[in-house]
């Protein structure tokens, strides 16, 4: 096991190097000179030269790349350009609110997705199945923006069931008061694609030989689906959920923006609006690293669920 993990970590090095170079190239060549941006409208040549020296833009590109690598390794990206807050503090303080929404959302989405997918598998091919799939297709084609606007207006503004926006201090208050509606909306948006995907995972298993064997020895359909099929369908489901977690961290940005949740996603949007390059660079690099680590974790869990899988 350990040699496998080490080898996988070793394989991440070139990919990570690629991510670093890609981000570096994007921000240093495609993006143009940020010192004009920072110096403001009435800049003179000296102010610009000064900013360039501070950012290290007057150094050769190899030194600049090295500075960037050092920043990543030491977790020190300096201060955000717009607010002067240390970037490392931005990242650590925004992670909590994001996870407050993300963890319950992912758990509920996965549980509901699995339960519904297995229930649908009982009646596969029937009218119910077809209607649910059509409903999923229609549900998926409505923009997430519409869900958020309508739910926020209807449930929070009109009916007053939830606060329209805001974020508190304690975890309990946030979870029960402020995060409830965002989680509900996230669930409403994600259940359709999740159900479609999980249904296809389950249907892949339903035709297998072991299902026929289980039926032949007289097991109830309920036991076959909830025990035998679930165990096997869990493998792709775990891979999907695990490898999607880092993307969700960013993907919830619309929820965070609409509900004023101070999370990572909202920070990305703010940083893009304010051209706050250090924040975007830091988030991009670390989210990419997290994606790779979570892919590895997914593979490790794969083996835990399915002993047939040999990780070599």
């Amino acid at each position, binding site marked *: 096991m350990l040699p496998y993990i080490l080898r996988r970590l070793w394989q991440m090095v070139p990919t990570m190097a*690629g991510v670093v170079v890609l981000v570096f190239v994007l921000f240093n060549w495609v993006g143009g000179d940020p010192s004009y941006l920072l110096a403001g409208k009435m800049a003179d040549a000296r102010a610009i030269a000064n900013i360039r020296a501070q950012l290290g833009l007057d150094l050769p590109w190899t030194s600049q790349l090295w500075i960037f690598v050092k920043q990543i390794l030491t977790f020190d990206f300096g201060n955000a350009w717009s607010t002067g807050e240390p970037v490392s503090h931005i990242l650590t303080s925004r992670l909590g609110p994001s996870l407050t929404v993300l963890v319950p959302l992912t758990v509920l989405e996965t549980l509901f997705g699995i339960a519904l997918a297995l229930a649908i598998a009982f009646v596969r091919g029937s009218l119910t199945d077809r209607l649910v799939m059509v409903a999923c297709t229609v549900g998926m*084609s*409505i*923009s997430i923006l519409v869900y958020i606007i309508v739910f926020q207006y209807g449930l929070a*503004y009109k009916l007053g069931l939830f606060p329209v926006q805001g974020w508190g201090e304690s975890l309990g208050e946030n979870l029960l008061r402020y995060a409830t509606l965002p989680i509900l909306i996230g669930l409403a948006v994600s259940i359709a694609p999740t159900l479609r995907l999980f249904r296809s995972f389950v249907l892949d298993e339903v035709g297998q030989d072991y299902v026929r064997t289980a039926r032949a020895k007289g097991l109830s359909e309920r036991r076959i689906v909830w025990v035998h099929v679930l165990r096997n369908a869990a493998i792709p489901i775990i891979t999907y959920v695990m490898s999607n977690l880092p*993307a969700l961290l960013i993907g919830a940005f619309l929820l965070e923006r609409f509900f004023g949740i101070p999370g990572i996603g909202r920070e990305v*949007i703010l940083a893009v609006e304010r051209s706050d390059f250090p924040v975007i660079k830091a988030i991009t690099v670390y989210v990419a690293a997290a994606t790779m680590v979570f892919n590895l974790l997914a593979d490790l869990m794969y083996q835990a669920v399915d002993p047939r899988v040999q990780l070599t």
Partner: protein
Amino acid sequence: MMRADPLHVQAASPGLWTLAWRRLRADRVAMVALAVVGLFLLSVLLSATGLVAADWEDEVAVNYAPPVFLGPDPALAALSRPVPPAPPNAFDPLAGDLAALKAGLAREGRAAPAAKAVTLPFGADKWGHDIVKKTIKGGQTSIVVGLVAALVAVALGTLFGALSGFYGGVVDDLFNWFYSVFTSIPSILMILTVAAVLQTKGVLSIVLILGLTGWTGPYRLIRAEYIKHKAREYVMAADAIGASNWRKMFVHIFPNVSHVALVQMSILVVGFIKAEVILSFLGFGVPVGVVSWGSMLNEAQNELILGKWWQLAAAASAMALLVTAFSLFADALRDALDPKLK
């Protein structure tokens, strides 16, 4: 009824596309979806050529005029009457100039603006623009962006996939590395990062953002197809008659894998239309003055609090209808072109 004659064997066996078209035509859902998509494309064509909705920016109704089926809003009735000319003011230093300008306008046949409509078929927005025309115009932007960006993404993915799958070896390793770099950054983050870097709003930059970040899906599938096809007899035959690598890749193999590219493109169009709407909503997409479904939703968000729901309903339902039809069609197309996959 014609009976198949066993003595006369069919001369030409139907090709992949003919068979796929037959399967598609047998699928009623797919044909309805295709018709809906066709109608949307027609409206894009008509509005792009200026035959329809060219005058969407005319302020034809009162602000927030409600849809016809709701009846006129009594609170807005006063706005619909043309403004009476102000009584002459002896102290107005510009009175002479204004009179001359008015006389000039009257001579050109442009009298005072006509009375504004109190209701419109589907209401009006803040400025009194016709929502139906605005939705058609916004659809033009969103659909064109989705189509062109998908074309760019599939072209890139096909080119990279062809090179990678056909040559193998170092080329393959290089592109695979590139692929794993791109896929390790979540696509929405990638899109926002590129948007932050480009800093120029415009239809072209949003097409580039989506196209340059979306090639990974087609790349993986096209590469697998090229690996499969490059060892087939027809490619060896092409090799034997001295076809160049480039010719083998794109003249011989590509037609045989083009159905994969087509299916990928139809899937990407749906995703890109959704992405464009979100980007424009956030203000990273289309510039001010260009209308898209995303910018309509952005305006609609504030209008909803005032109780003016029609712009939201128009943009949201037009988009939902197109995306539903397009994804149903994409599913049917995939099933028709790859019957094994079902």
